[in-house]
């Protein structure tokens, strides 16, 4: 089991109300999508689970990530979990070209993919963007570069928060196919998305969250 949650709840610091989450099981090569209205706590769940300094409280009966209790997950999960937050495109280093960022991430990984540039065609990215800085490419391109950077480490679990934002329909089709191939390579995907069509293309299970 890659992720297992039972009676998991979280709340932001200083707020009285808890977000109560449905039980969740995510296995290797599977994709679970969290859906729900804006403000119902989708991103809060991902932050609570995967942000090292979550500014709030967490309570649960069982919360295991890659077989390890949430409280003991530590930095050991770094090599196995990739997390692409909302608006990940804003997280690209503005002072490095796309190519330099790819090389930097490769150098930081224990077992990186051999040729990350092979993903370019799958994602509909042109090779010449490796020479460009983030401010010189579109939002949709940056979104796909962020996606690619997350897969360089060959994660066992990829956590994606709204990866379809800023993507047009032609690119969405390519992204769905890209994520399906990564699932076939045994990567588990935990994803927040508001886009039911996009989610339906990838999801094995959909969890719909309601407020509270």
């Amino acid at each position, binding site marked *: 089991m890659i992720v297992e949650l039972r009676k998991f709840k979280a709340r*932001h610091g200083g707020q009285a109300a808890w977000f*109560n*989450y*449905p*039980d969740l099981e995510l296995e290797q090569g599977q994709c679970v999508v969290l*859906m*729900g*209205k*804006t*403000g119902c706590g989708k*991103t809060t769940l991902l932050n609570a689970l995967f942000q090292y300094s979550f500014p709030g409280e967490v309570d649960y009966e069982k919360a295991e990530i890659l077989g390890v209790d949430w409280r003991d997950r530590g930095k050991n999960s770094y090599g196995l979990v990739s997390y692409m937050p*909302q*608006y990940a*495109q*804003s997280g690209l280093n503005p002072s490095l070209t796309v190519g330099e960022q790819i090389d930097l991430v490769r150098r930081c990984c224990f077992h990186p993919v051999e040729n990350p540039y092979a993903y370019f065609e799958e994602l509909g990215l042109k090779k010449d963007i490796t020479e460009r800085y983030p401010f*010189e*490419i*579109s*939002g*949709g*391109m940056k*979104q*796909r570069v962020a996606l690619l950077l997350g897969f360089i480490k060959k994660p066992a679990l990829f956590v994606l928060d*709204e990866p379809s*934002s*800023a*993507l*047009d*329909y*032609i*690119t*969405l*089709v390519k992204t*769905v196919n890209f994520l399906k191939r990564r699932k076939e390579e045994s990567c588990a995907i935990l994803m927040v998305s*508001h*886009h*039911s*069509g*996009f*989610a*339906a*293309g990838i*999801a*094995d*299970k*959909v*969890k*719909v*969250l*309601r407020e509270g």
Partner: protein
Amino acid sequence: MNILLEAVGLNKKFNGNTTVLNNVCLKIRRGGIAALIGESGGGKTTLCRVFTGLEKASSGKVLFKGKELGTLRGRSFDDCASLQYIFQDPYAALEEESTVSSVLQEPVNMCSRRGRDYMPPQEALTWAGLAGAAFLGRKIKTLSGGQRQRVSLARSLITRPDLIIADECTAMLDAQAAAEIGRIFKKLNQKLGLSFLIVTHDAQFLYQVVDYIYVLHEGAIVEAGPKDRVLNIPSAGYTREYMESMWEIEGGGLIEQDHLCQPQ
């Protein structure tokens, strides 16, 4: 036809050689809601930034209410106030530590200083679907992506603009909230006569909100026409490809009930 915004032969090159906009000509009529669609990297955001003066076109003209507009520095306050822009990324567009109240007070102060009529913040928030005085005290960092985008919309309404350019403003909203934003745009259009240029990838918006569609591909307008014509009888090969992809994605939007797990 009363033309509000017009692009005349706009060209934009980055680094002197990468063509981003190629002889773009379009017209937004007063009271209209136009959409700009196309593939990522096709120049949609750059075109919006040229309209709002954040980028300088390499050649060509932008006319707003018949008057040629330069970059932001050369524009009058009234020009800037009348043409508002909602950014693609609400996380970058709003200061994290600010309160909603202070974000909305800034354009109020600017309008007051220059004697321009403005919309009270409470009213702007209500239009944006965030009613309630308590919301004014919330810090931006406590808001979800969708709520931030609605605050951006409220901020743009304060100056009582003629035209709002919205760059993928529903990208971070769930379907219900996006539909609500669409209804708000329609209402603002009908009740206040507000015009819109909307960059969108949202089929719901294309079908239910806009009345005219421009298709941008590799920096050039490859198709333009009334919504029903472009959506149902696209003439350009690129538009047909776009529509096929749209249905490949949206056709999968009906998730089988077996896969639907309700919260416990």
